[in-house]
């Protein structure tokens, strides 16, 4: 048995040792409050402003302000509620999709209770939002469209540039949740027609508790966290200096070679797992798939049991099975791409990281074959 094979990098990642090293001075040495008048906060301020510039540069963020937050959930809630409340006079209609992360969906549902109107766009079998479906959904009173950049379950990368073009042609703001794609998919905020974009540190070997929202200059928003006026007044609260410094370091050390490596072992996984009878890959293949995502369905078995079997062999993965969720509902994403509930239950996501080796993938495939066989032997379904 191998030591530990971590294949749940879409959930969260190990903090890179370089990242931790970069953070350390800001805990015990330059720990000052950025908002202070005295020089003790000045090092902290410089570090945060450098982080802001460095991260912005990665996505051509010249026309945007990067506002640091506590993570993806906060950035997404801030976007939906902030834009909706600030633009009530312009319109009360928001468009999003059926395959968003729960934080978008549940914030949208809350807005519906406050009198806003939300359209949840369907997607096709591979998880793509179709352009004409989007443009048909736009109304005169639509103020915002929030469309996930790359899906966290099945890895589909949406055609954000084209969607953004349509949004802008109709004078609608475009937000994209790039928690999964940031640093993995090239993004140019200007060319890609993105007004607002959510990014997240713990998905890219940065610390938990840090995230961000890019806001195009001129976009009207109300804060979600009111208070002392930090972060240009968009997001109050003591600035998490070490978290931000770690986030920027994590962005900095992500290199093309890591992406190439992830794609290679992802494809090993895809080839090896779909060798199992009555199994298939969910989401697209090739360049429209997230570099680190492999998502499968296996007929006649249930995901939680499969996950736990793998866990007993030291392999960490995740499932869209109902049994794994508090609601006992199968994944809304798998339902949206048209899977039958019984097939959704037998689904599993592997998300690779730069640290995974070929040997780990081979071991995982052997274990997966065994586990599926064991569970199928136990299953009354044929």
């Amino acid at each position, binding site marked *: 048995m191998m030591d530990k094979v971590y294949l749940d990098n879409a959930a969260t990642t190990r903090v890179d040792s370089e990242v931790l090293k970069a953070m350390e001075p800001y805990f015990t040495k330059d720990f000052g409050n950025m908002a202070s008048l005295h020089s003790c906060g000045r090092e902290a301020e410089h570090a945060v402003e450098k982080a802001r510039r460095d991260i912005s540069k990665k996505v051509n963020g010249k026309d945007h302000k990067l506002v640091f937050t506590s993570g993806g959930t906060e950035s997404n809630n801030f976007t939906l509620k902030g834009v909706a409340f600030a633009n009530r006079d312009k319109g009360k209609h928001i468009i999003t999709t059926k395959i968003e992360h729960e934080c978008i969906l549940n914030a949208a549902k809350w807005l519906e209770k406050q009198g806003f109107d939300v359209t949840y766009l369907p997607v096709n079998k591979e998880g793509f939002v179709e352009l004409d479906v989007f443009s048909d959904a736009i109304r005169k009173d639509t103020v915002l469209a929030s469309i996930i950049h790359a899906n966290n379950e099945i890895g589909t990368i949406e055609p954000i540039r084209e969607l953004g073009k349509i949004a802008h042609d109709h004078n609608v703001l475009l937000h994209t949740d790039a928690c999964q794609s940031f640093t993995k998919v090239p993004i140019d905020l200007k060319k890609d027609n993105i007004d607002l974009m959510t990014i997240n540190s713990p998905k890219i070997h940065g610390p938990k508790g840090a995230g961000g929202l890019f806001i195009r200059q001129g976009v009207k928003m109300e804060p979600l966290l009111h208070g002392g006026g930090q972060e240009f007044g968009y997001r109050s609260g003591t600035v998490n200096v070490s978290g931000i410094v770690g986030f920027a370091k994590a962005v900095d050390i992500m290199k093309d070679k890591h992406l190439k490596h992830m794609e290679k072992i992802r494809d090993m996984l895809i080839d090896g797992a779909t060798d199992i009878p009555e199994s298939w890959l969910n989401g697209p293949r090739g360049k429209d798939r997230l570099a680190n995502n492999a998502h499968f369905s296996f007929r006649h078995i*249930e995901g*939680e049991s499969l996950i736990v079997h793998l866990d*007993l062999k030291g392999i960490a993965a995740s499932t869209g099975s109902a049994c794994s969720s508090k609601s006992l509902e199968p994944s809304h994403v798998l339902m949206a791409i048209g899977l039958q509930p019984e097939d959704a239950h037998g689904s599993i996501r592997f998300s690779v990281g730069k640290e995974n080796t070929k040997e780990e993938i081979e071991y995982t495939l052997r274990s997966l074959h065994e586990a599926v066989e064991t569970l199928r032997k136990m299953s009354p379904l044929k």
Partner: protein
Amino acid sequence: MGLGYTEKVMEHFKSPHNMGEIKNPDGVGKVGNPVCGDVMKIYIKVRRYKGKEVIGDIKFQTYGCVSAIATTSMMTKLAKGKDLDAALKISRNDVANALGGLPPIKMHCSHLATEALEAAIKDYRKTGKKKAK
């Protein structure tokens, strides 16, 4: 949330008791629905012992989560050798307790396990009785 399963649950999941099929069963019960993510199938052989009908052999097949598998395994262990009336009295709490408890959200699994046994006994009483000796 982690899993919140007890050691006992994990034992039964890893090495389930009485897993498999019985070729010519006296009774078969099947409950659950693949749409919901759980299906349990119970096979029993009944024999007479001291004037009572006793579960001589029992096997199960389960499609479902860890707790579905562990509860059917434990239920078969509790039922084996019991006379039918005593077997019918095995409650879902008996199964859960024998496993050292289940996470609240998974309690329905133990319910399904006892339902499957009931269905098998009913099936035997309706159709299998003639075959049993």
